[in-house]
């Protein structure tokens, strides 16, 4: 045990050092003389035209593709470390095998991520040389820290993957997990640095507001107002994204496999991945609220551009996507009830949950302003429907999403309970308490939503806070009660593999919708800068400084998503190819 503690401590020390290295880098940056030259003011002629290619589309595609791949290669080690830890704690080798299997896949994706990252850098320098020159001036030596960390990440990744079997058992496993922790810390630091560049462009800090001359340290530039909200948002989204992609892989393997044992394995993998995806997904709207609240606090104009201006319609698409994700995840969970014999007992509640999920989805997609012809507007007496119009504003949306989250969690809880029979004497009382928690919680969510209608707009967002707190209270409270309630419970057999083929398609919906959603949100985030490279500091004077239409954006995002899906198919194929062995008895031709 002492050795274990030592290994973990060493691992944590290494992690701490790695976190502090950039910190020291920033501190050293304090001594660097401020770059007093302001931001460049490029004219349209300063943007190179190369064979009539749309520079922005190239950069957009490369950046989005790099982000998809980076999110995947960052999330898989997170996912692997979590499952490796679960495997160590539970002693269930399936977790360990799954974690190892996924590291193998991320190895192939890793080099592709670097390749696309290189392409992105090249295209940025090619099409936006002045902007990149300014960014380098602002962030100075940080790019070198980034490059060094990238090197460390590669080394740690290889050690983590190749030492898997050598450090699989006993105390060595803890050492192996320390390497995994180091890998993830470096990966996250890389992401945080890249986030600083993106958020500096949205909410610049450490530069003179009038000229753009660099006046602050690298740390001041990095710690701009939107940095931390984006860090949290992307961290959680990565967990959800990794889970969704692994789930899609498991679903495909489930459909392709004929062997019942392997089928059972991939069914279990699909369930676990979906669990992790939803676990990362549940707090995501709250991280989104924080990000948006910080955007408003930084610049009310920017906030309104997002939520009430030209980009407002995009949030209706976001609602459709998130609603699709929720419905697919719930459908998969309900299908999973057939894995246990007691599942039928819980299946009778599915129809009620379905009403809430579908109802919430419909409320979420109801726009405030309707798309109508002039004749329809005349008949309706305005662009807002008398009954449905109120469903288009924030209080209704917040209420809907919180109820959807609560009931999605309930679907999870039903499956969890279906495989265990409680034996504690207070099981019934505990259950009643959980039911009361749900009922009172839902009343509170709806009540806070109604309050949102009678308070001025500025307080509407504030009214969502008690809703969020209630949702988290229901989830955390019922988990705690259930953990004690099901302690020493009688386990029921879970028939892994006893799943319909149709249910697996729900698992495909998740990665597809997640990927497209990430593309959409990236488009929104970038568009918030409107016609500025660096908001209020450096104008974009290129011919493509406009915000494209939703349709144009949708088409571009779809094209990039298709490209990413093709890459993923290639990566999965590569990993299977690596595991394929030519039959020894096969004669050479």
């Amino acid at each position, binding site marked *: 045990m002492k050795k274990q503690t030592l290994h973990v401590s060493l691992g944590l020390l290494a992690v701490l050092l790695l976190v502090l290295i950039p910190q020291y880098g920033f501190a050293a940056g304090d001594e660097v003389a401020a770059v007093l030259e302001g931001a460049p003011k490029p004219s349209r002629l300063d943007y190179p035209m190369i064979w009539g290619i749309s520079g922005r589309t190239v950069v957009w595609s490369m950046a989005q593709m790099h982000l998809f791949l980076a999110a995947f290669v960052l999330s898989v080690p997170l996912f692997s470390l979590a499952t490796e830890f679960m495997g160590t704690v539970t002693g269930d080798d399936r977790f360990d095998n799954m974690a190892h299997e996924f590291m193998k896949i991320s190895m192939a994706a890793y080099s592709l991520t670097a390749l696309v990252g290189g392409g992105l850098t090249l295209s940025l320098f090619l099409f936006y040389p002045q902007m990149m020159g300014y960014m380098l001036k602002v962030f100075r030596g940080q790019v070198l820290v980034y490059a060094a960390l990238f090197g460390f990440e590669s080394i740690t990744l290889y050690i983590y993957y190749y030492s898997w079997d050598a450090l699989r058992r006993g105390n060595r496993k803890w050492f192996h997990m320390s390497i995994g922790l180091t890998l993830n810390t470096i990966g996250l630091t890389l992401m945080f640095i890249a986030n600083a560049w993106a958020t500096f462009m949205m909410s610049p800090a450490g530069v003179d507001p009038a000229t753009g001359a660099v006046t602050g340290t690298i740390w001041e530039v990095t710690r701009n107002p939107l940095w931390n909200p984006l860090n949290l948002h992307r961290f959680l989204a990565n967990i959800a994204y990794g889970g969704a992609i692994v789930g899609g892989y498991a679903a495909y393997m489930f*459909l392709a496999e004929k062997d019942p044992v392997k089928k059972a394995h991939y069914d279990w993998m699909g369930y676990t991945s979906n669990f992790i995806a939803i676990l990362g997904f549940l707090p995501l709207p709250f991280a989104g609220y924080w990000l948006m609240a910080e955007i408003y606090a930084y610049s*009310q104009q920017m906030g309104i551009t997002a939520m009430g201006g030209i980009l407002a319609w995009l949030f209706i*698409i976001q609602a459709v996507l998130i609603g699709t994700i929720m419905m697919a995840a719930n459908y998969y969970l309900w299908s999973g009830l057939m894995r246990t014999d007691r599942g039928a007992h819980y299946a009778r509640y599915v129809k009620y949950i379905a009403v809430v999920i579908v109802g919430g989805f419909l409320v979420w997609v109801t726009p405030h302003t309707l798309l109508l012809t002039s004749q329809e507007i005349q008949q309706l007496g305005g662009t807002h429907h008398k009954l449905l119009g109120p469903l288009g504003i924030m209080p209704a949306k917040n209420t809907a999403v919180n109820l959807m989250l609560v009931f999605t969690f309930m679907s999870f809880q039903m499956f969890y309970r279906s495989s265990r029979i409680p034996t504690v004497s207070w099981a019934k009382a505990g259950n009643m308490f959980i039911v009361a928690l749900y009922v009172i919680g839902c009343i509170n969510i709806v009540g806070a939503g109604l309050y949102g209608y009678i308070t001025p707009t500025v307080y509407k967002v504030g009214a969502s806070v008690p809703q969020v707190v209630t949702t988290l209270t229901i989830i955390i409270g019922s988990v705690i009660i259930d953990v004690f309630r099901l302690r020493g419970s009688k386990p029921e057999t879970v028939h892994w593999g006893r799943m319909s083929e149709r249910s697996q398609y729900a698992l*495909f919906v998740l990665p*597809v919708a997640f990927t497209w959603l990430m593309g959409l949100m990236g488009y929104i985030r970038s568009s918030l800068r409107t016609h500025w490279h660096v908001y*209020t500091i450096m104008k974009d004077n290129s011919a493509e400084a406009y915000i494209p239409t939703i349709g*144009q954006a949708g088409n571009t995002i779809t094209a990039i998503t298709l490209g990413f899906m093709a890459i993923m198919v290639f990566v999965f194929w590569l990993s299977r190819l690596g595991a394929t062995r030519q039959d020894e008895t096969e004669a050479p031709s």
Partner: protein
Amino acid sequence: MTFLRVVLFSVAVLLVFTGFANVLPQIQSDPPKEEIIDTGSLDMAGMISLGESLFKGKGTCTLCHNGMGRAPDLLEMNLAETFPERLKDPRYKGVAAGKEGPKAIEEYIHESMVDPSAYVVAGFGKKGTNDTESPMPTINKPPVELNEIEINAVIAFLQDRAGIEPTVPLPSAEDVVVPDESSSEGPDVATTAEDAIDKFGCAACHDLFGSEADTGPPLAGIGKRMSRGDLMDAILYPNDTIAEGYEADIMPQDFAEQMSASELTLIVDYLLNLPE
């Protein structure tokens, strides 16, 4: 088969999302254009009208000054009563404090635009600042960047709404802000070879796009007769080499100054690929 089914299913899901994005209202948001104000024809009525369009457009004032409660609804409230009340507010310590009349109101509005935190109307401050800090952007700074004439126009509009004769000065020719060349969008640059050829009028003298013009030599198959470098030289310095049977000084000599590098590249690429 499984692979194909999965791919088709995933693509179908993607197409649903794409289709949905395409049926929503399609609006492209262009960057605001720098407009040079014609001061010669601008009277006070014109200033008020300009102020209204700035208030609802470039100034982006209506994003917050509307009925949603983010900022006082200047288009609905009784400004005739409100402005004098604000000047008398004991919390107001700005440039017009203790003053009265239309000129004081002008100073008050001007200050609220260029220094929004000088006085924040109760209940409209940034959260947690106890109404000492305004969420409003400084109007003469980025991202809004109204110039002094435009600010005066908005003041004229608001004074007019309050039933006051505007006190702001009419702009003179010297006041006009000419957009900074280095920060402006620059001249329109052609993005296709066709546009570039059209822009510089090449088809007026050469047989391009079926113009059958013969003032300049034919360019069909020019890629076989000239190298890229020679062709560039022939465009930029046309008198250096004159094709047999044609005269010097016909083709413009200043394309080196007029054309952007990208336009020259587009034209040369196009010409080099012309069939015989």
